[in-house]
């Protein structure tokens, strides 16, 4: 939304120039420089080495695990986010404020602590540790733990995105649909969903970026077993600590690509949402 600034409250060209320069320097130094560095480090030794690093078996396994974790966590949180936002925005009930606070919790808690929570629950000495061992199930230091931790950390994204939008829309349109004889499911599918689709997409994209990039929580529960419980971000750490700089930055460049795609999609969705008048 571009509003024209009245001339009487415009800053002098000097002030404007100085502030824009500071802003550009900040963006350049803090945001663009790291991206440029990842690219030069990844490709600096030639394209073959870059491809080799990506073709490496452990890197491939890490990529598969990252995609798997995101493929489970994102749809689960989509389902949960839509239903939680629906409950909070369209109905009145006791404990609503508590539910809102709980939804925000993974944002407020350090990812390391989120991971720790799962170790305390499902680890060998945890609450369910004995039971899990008796049934020969492994959660911590195995794939289920990684998926659980990812779900926990990305849990607020869709819900947070939808709650304000659905609250702003109120229940008028749904009530009209019900009066006209629509069933609950029809109302949701034909009335509610079209109204929130851009917000849903926005939330899903941010949720996905975080799910694929999560480091702290996953690092606690993963156990760092190469080829088995290593996600891409953890693989970057291992390579970096072994001084395999080119390989580390090559894998990092994959994750950076994910970030860039996320930002582009986000910008496109925001433009479309603004265009359709429903953010």
């Amino acid at each position: 939304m571009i509003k024209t600034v009245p001339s009487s409250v415009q800053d002098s060209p000097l002030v404007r120039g100085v502030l824009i320069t500071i802003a550009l320097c900040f963006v350049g130094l803090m945001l663009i420089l790291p991206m440029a560095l990842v690219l030069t480090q990844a490709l600096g030794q030639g394209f073959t080495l870059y491809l080799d690093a990506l073709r490496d078996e452990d890197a491939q396994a890490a990529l598969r695990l990252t995609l798997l974790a995101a493929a489970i966590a994102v749809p689960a949180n989509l389902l949960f986010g839509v239903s939680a936002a629906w409950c909070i925005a369209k109905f009145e009930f006791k404990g609503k404020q508590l539910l809102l606070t709980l939804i925000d919790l993974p944002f407020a808690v350090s990812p390391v602590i989120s991971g720790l929570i799962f170790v305390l629950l499902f680890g060998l000495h945890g609450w369910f540790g004995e039971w899990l061992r008796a049934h020969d199930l492994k959660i911590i230091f195995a794939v289920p733990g990684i998926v659980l931790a990812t779900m926990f950390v990305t849990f607020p994204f869709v819900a947070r995105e939808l709650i304000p939008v659905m609250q702003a829309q109120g229940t008028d349109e749904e009530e009209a649909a019900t009066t006209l004889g629509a069933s609950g499911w029809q109302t949701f599918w034909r009335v509610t969903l079209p109204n929130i689709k851009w917000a849903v997409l926005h939330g899903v994209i941010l949720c996905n970026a975080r799910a694929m990039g999560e480091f702290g929580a996953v690092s606690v529960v993963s156990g760092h077993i190469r080829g088995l419980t290593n996600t891409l971000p953890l693989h970057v750490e291992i390579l970096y600590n072994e001084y395999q700089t080119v390989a580390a930055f090559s894998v990092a460049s994959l994750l950076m690509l994910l970030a860039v795609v996320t930002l582009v999609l986000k910008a496109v969705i925001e433009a479309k949402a603004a265009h359709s008048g429903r953010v």
Partner: protein
Amino acid sequence: MLIPLSATFLKAAEGGLASFWATISAPRVIAAYRVTFGCALVAALINTVFGVLLAWVLVRYRFPGRRLCDALIDLPFALPTAVAGIALAAIYAPKGWVGQYAADWGIKIAFTPMGITIALIFIGIPFVVRTVQPVLESMDFACEEAATTLGANRWQSFRLVVLPALIPAVLTGFALAFARGIGEYGSVIFVAGNMPMVSEIVPLLIITKLEQYDYAGANAIAVAMLGISFVMLLAINLLQAWTRRAESQR
């Protein structure tokens, strides 16, 4: 959600209060708290200044590259923290792009608390910009115009008219950046050097304890950290409520 969280608290109570206190008041733990909260505070303050400036520039001025800048602000949200960590470590290391010039002046950035602060600035900047920006966008020019008509210069009307209206958003942005900075792990560990007593952060200390199978210790530190974070978030919430009340009375 509730069960896992209460699990941490109960587990901490299991060991008894005395051992809990002994763990969290050990010198190494206290030092880690100081580093974590100190760096997060400095980074959040710097982010507040630059965040307001960026939001102002993005909302009020038109210049080439504005939309790109706007989109890039969200990069720290989208970029995995481990990637940010290794990139910042390489840039600010003594042989890195920026680090070599700092080294000429005898300043070490990476692997010191300064490196941690820079990582936290990177992580926190979108929080301030994205909370202040919408408020600036929806702000009416009428009050500012009135101030100008009454003879205020631009700086006066910014300080006395615009800034007071921004304060709740600025405080919220500051609080969010600060809270994120306290918990941040991925981007910090690469650039911190992780020396006990000097540049070791609390989340890393938790992981170290876990790797030594000291679950009770890890848990005690985590509970203390949760407690401090909650108290601070509460204080900031009260501060905001107070600002809003002052606003509505005016």
